[in-house]
């Protein structure tokens, strides 16, 4: 009987009701019984305000599974979730890097997210997650690095089952997330927010209302507010924080 309930609890409809009514919600809508799956965090790129974004990543299939023929696909979206470009990297032994600037994005000076998927013709019967490192460089200064922090999409190793919006969502806008740092003494602070859920989310940041469609992103300037209090219907609306003071920036996951 217990195992029947557990099985029901983990069906698609079961997870929907768990998340809807906040009963042992699933933060990420991933099926861990699946295999040959590449999960990607949503990586926030920006080329606005004289920013460049440096992405440093590891070929996880080669590092862990010795799959030298594996490929890496990186897919770029703008802040409104419109596909911008797709690139494929091959023959990467361990790690590589990619500079995302306005030239790479054909003159676009804006922001959005990208996803990285590992592809292979081999079956490794595994699920891997890429949450590697983003460096934000303003005015050509040393990038301030931060690792990926929220799973948002998946694809199988064959590249034929792309899914977005794997972030869990509640029916109620009552999920509070407070960044555990204070922003005292900074000139200003920005929060880089992405909607990892399949549906539109609504949220408050320090009592100001926002909404974001699935896959869309927003940079919210909270000026000199000393804290960031986020209330939403997304179970894990976790921003990247950028603090500014004088000519210096500090980027970190909130």
């Amino acid at each position, binding site marked *: 009987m217990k195992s029947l309930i557990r099985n029901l609890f983990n069906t698609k409809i079961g997870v929907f009701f768990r998340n809807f009514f906040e009963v042992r919600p699933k933060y990420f809508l991933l099926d861990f019984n699946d295999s040959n799956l590449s999960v990607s965090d949503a990586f926030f790129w920006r080329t606005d305000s004289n920013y460049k974004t440096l992405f*440093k990543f590891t070929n996880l299939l080669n590092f862990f599974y010795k799959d030298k023929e594996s490929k890496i696909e990186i897919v770029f979206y703008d802040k409104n979730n419109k596909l911008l470009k797709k690139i494929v990297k091959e023959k990467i032994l361990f790690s590589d890097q990619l500079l995302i600037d306005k030239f790479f994005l054909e003159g676009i000076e804006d922001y959005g997210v990208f996803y990285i998927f590992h592809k292979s013709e081999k079956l490794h019967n*595994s699920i*891997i997650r890429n949450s590697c*490192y983003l460096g934000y460089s303003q005015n050509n200064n*040393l990038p301030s*690095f931060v690792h990926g922090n929220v799973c948002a999409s998946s694809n199988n190793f064959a590249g034929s089952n792309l899914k977005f919006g794997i972030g869990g969502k509640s029916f109620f806008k009552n999920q509070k997330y407070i960044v555990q740092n204070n922003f005292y003494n900074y000139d200003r602070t920005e929060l880089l927010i992405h909607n990892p859920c399949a549906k539109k989310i609504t949220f408050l940041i320090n009592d100001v209302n926002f909404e974001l469609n699935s896959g869309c992103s927003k940079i919210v300037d909270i000026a000199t507010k000393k804290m960031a209090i986020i209330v939403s219907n997304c179970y894990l609306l976790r921003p990247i924080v950028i603090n500014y003071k004088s000519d*210096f920036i500090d980027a970190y996951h909130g």
Partner: protein
Amino acid sequence: MNFFFSFKNNFIQSRLTIPRFNNSGQYQNSLKVFEAKADSNLWKINEINCDFNENFYFIDESLTNNDSIFFLAKEENIELIKKNNYSKLVCFNNFTSTHPVEYRSNLKVTVFGGGFSSYQSDYPFSMIGKKGSILSPLSNLLNKKSDKNIILIKNIYEEPIHEAFNLYFVDLIAKKVLRKDKILTNFTNEIIVDPGLIEPNIYIFTDKYLGIPIYLSIKSNHISFEHTHPPHHYILSNDKFKKVSEIKKEVHEIINSQSI
């Protein structure tokens, strides 16, 4: 439960900000900040008299060093470690045991007269009783062209000992150990990295204890400060520990094949 830590050297200022609330906004105002330090095979525990406001405790570098760790507790929680005669760290309380997002402090470093960088930092209680090895890539968070590249390795072990263990720089393609350092348990170890070692095929590896590797890079007074994840973070399927253990075994074999 999570511990917090800071860092001190002669050209970087550090500041640790410990929140008095968890990510979902629950407060426990009766908790105070305590410091633990390994000394003569005992844990010395002191309450810290630091600046605070209703939301945070602030620990500046005058209150820290590379030995100290910090935690939130009530005075009566300290009785738990008295019971074992201060010989082993204990879980003082569960306020900082949060899921799925860890309860974190902010560890910020500032270059004198220059930039600043921070990361949301913690050292989980679940790590302090375990032995094992760190495997972490050098090139993902360091920069060949920087003025300075530094790795901090923070270890917290449950017993109050400063035991030396080995840190290796290993070239995974050439299968060679390029450098070996001695580092200490219960310490924030600072390792200056030569730019020549910052290559995608070069990883750091420890042979006995776990820890958190944190990478610090400075160029023209700008600074970047971030940690790497342990390798098993990148595999979500059940084979995660098997795969990581296979890779660590390979690195062990490289080390064992050479007399360093």
